[in-house]
């Protein structure tokens, strides 16, 4: 398989480095290595909902131009928020030629974007291009006995046009973990909001919301919650550190990026794993096969 043009996003170079490191290992192991765009900029962070706010779509459009320059028609992302922003802008400018024309006119002496870039989340690549069977066959350290709750949050699955799975009952991340031997549990908060940026100005709102998510996962029997978004991950981690309300039951739960568990299953060296993943492996998973 050829290399995949890959857009990391800012957080993955900073506080979510382990999310990306694990993804690199997984995709390399599966023979579909990620090739980071040589030049890229912030996706725009949040997709602007204002009708006339084209300025905030330029960031995404520039990344599409860089993708074309890299010789690719597809751009793979890992961060759920980047995916959401990039995919929505891609769809919007595809559907509104007049808006794209304005954006190109503003960029002036630079290369025009003429449409045609498809944004894919890495989970879509695993599901639709590689397949669960192929993933399964690559496992060297099956995650037996590990009960996981796949937490999707908002941006992977909403809105419908760009969602990578069913809006209400997504399964893609649970399927990925199941393919490597883990046992997914379902819980009612899997596609609820984590509280997002409220964590900055109104932290209690985000913490209550995240706390609810963790409790729900725990009540469903999960040992570990897996995420696909640095902000979800951050808020859930904060809720673990600063529990609010009735929260005894969440203390024993762990939160990790889904790529971290996939990498563990596919035989990543323990030295490259985060302490949380090492702990999960030592307590829940029967170590066999792996390093």
């Amino acid at each position: 398989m050829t290399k995949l043009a890959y857009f990391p996003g800012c957080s993955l170079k900073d506080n979510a480095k382990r999310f990306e490191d694990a993804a690199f290992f997984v995709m390399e192991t599966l023979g579909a290595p990620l090739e980071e765009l040589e030049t890229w900029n912030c996706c725009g962070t949040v997709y602007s909902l204002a009708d006339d706010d084209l300025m905030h779509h330029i960031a995404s459009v520039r990344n599409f131009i860089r993708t074309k320059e890299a010789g690719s028609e597809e751009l793979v992302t890992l961060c759920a928020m980047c995916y959401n922003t990039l995919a929505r802008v891609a769809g919007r400018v595809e559907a509104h030629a007049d808006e794209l024309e304005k954006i190109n006119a503003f960029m002036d002496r630079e290369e025009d974007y003429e449409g045609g870039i498809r944004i894919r989340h890495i989970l879509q690549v695993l599901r639709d291009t590689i397949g669960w069977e192929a993933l399964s066959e690559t496992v060297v350290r099956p995650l037996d006995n590990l009960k996981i709750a796949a937490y999707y949050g908002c941006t992977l699955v909403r809105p419908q046009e760009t969602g990578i799975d069913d809006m209400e009952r997504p399964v893609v991340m649970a399927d990925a973990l199941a393919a490597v031997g883990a046992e997914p549990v379902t819980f009612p908060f899997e596609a609820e909001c984590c509280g997002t940026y409220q964590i900055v100005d109104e932290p209690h709102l985000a913490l209550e919301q995240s706390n609810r998510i963790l409790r729900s996962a725990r009540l469903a029997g999960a040992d570990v919650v897996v995420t696909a978004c640095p902000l979800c991950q951050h808020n859930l981690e904060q809720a673990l550190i600063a529990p609010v309300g009735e929260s005894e039951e969440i203390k024993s739960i762990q939160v990790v990026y889904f790529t971290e568990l996939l990498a563990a299953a596919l035989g990543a060296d323990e030295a490259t794993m985060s302490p949380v993943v090492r702990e999960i492996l030592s307590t829940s998973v029967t170590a066999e096969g792996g390093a």
Partner: protein
Amino acid sequence: MADEKLTQIYIMGKAYDVPVGVTIMDAMEYAGYRFIRGAGCRSGFCGACGTVYRKAGEYRLEFVLACQEMVEEGMHLTQLPFTPAPRSDYTLAELDPSENVLLQHYPEIARCVSCNTCTKACPQEIEVMDYIQAALRGDVAKVAELSFDCIACGLCAMRCPADIKHYHVGQMGRRLHGVADLATPEHLTARIAQLDGGAFDGEMETLASASLADLKAKYAERVIEKVQEPEVATEEVAT
């Protein structure tokens, strides 16, 4: 001058006939201006002479250095030799480069919408927006590489709709990269230990007391070191 032909330009709205084929700086002096601000090295290194102009019939504002750019018929120009741009003080040795210190010191970089106006304003053809984006994700090596040719003229900061002070970010990024990512070569540390230990004192004393004839003889005997390129260069040039 290369040519006696004159052409008309507008300095702050006033028309002047100036020679063809000279820089904006020379043309302004020809017109009768004597610079106090707005002229420095006169060679494109100091960033004192940032200048903006528009040409008749052009909607774009152009950004140049007065000492490097030639005058052109119908230019309407003015200098912007000073950019109010507060910087953030820091103590280099106390910074933890693993934290995103650039974002902490210049939180406004998060306001970047990638409009790229800064890049278009750069007379050094630096990818300014790209280094601000690298700063945003804490990649100081990239900041250093991309911002290296910066002469701090300030035109980027003057132009930015997000009020970013790009050149300060670049400066801090370069210094951080230097101390965080690059080790002091061992031979330098060893040489300083030798100097501290007085390893060369005897030799230097001998030279200091040598006669002129001795010195000339020693100079003539010097063997000039042959240039040898390293076989494999993996990392080059200042970053």
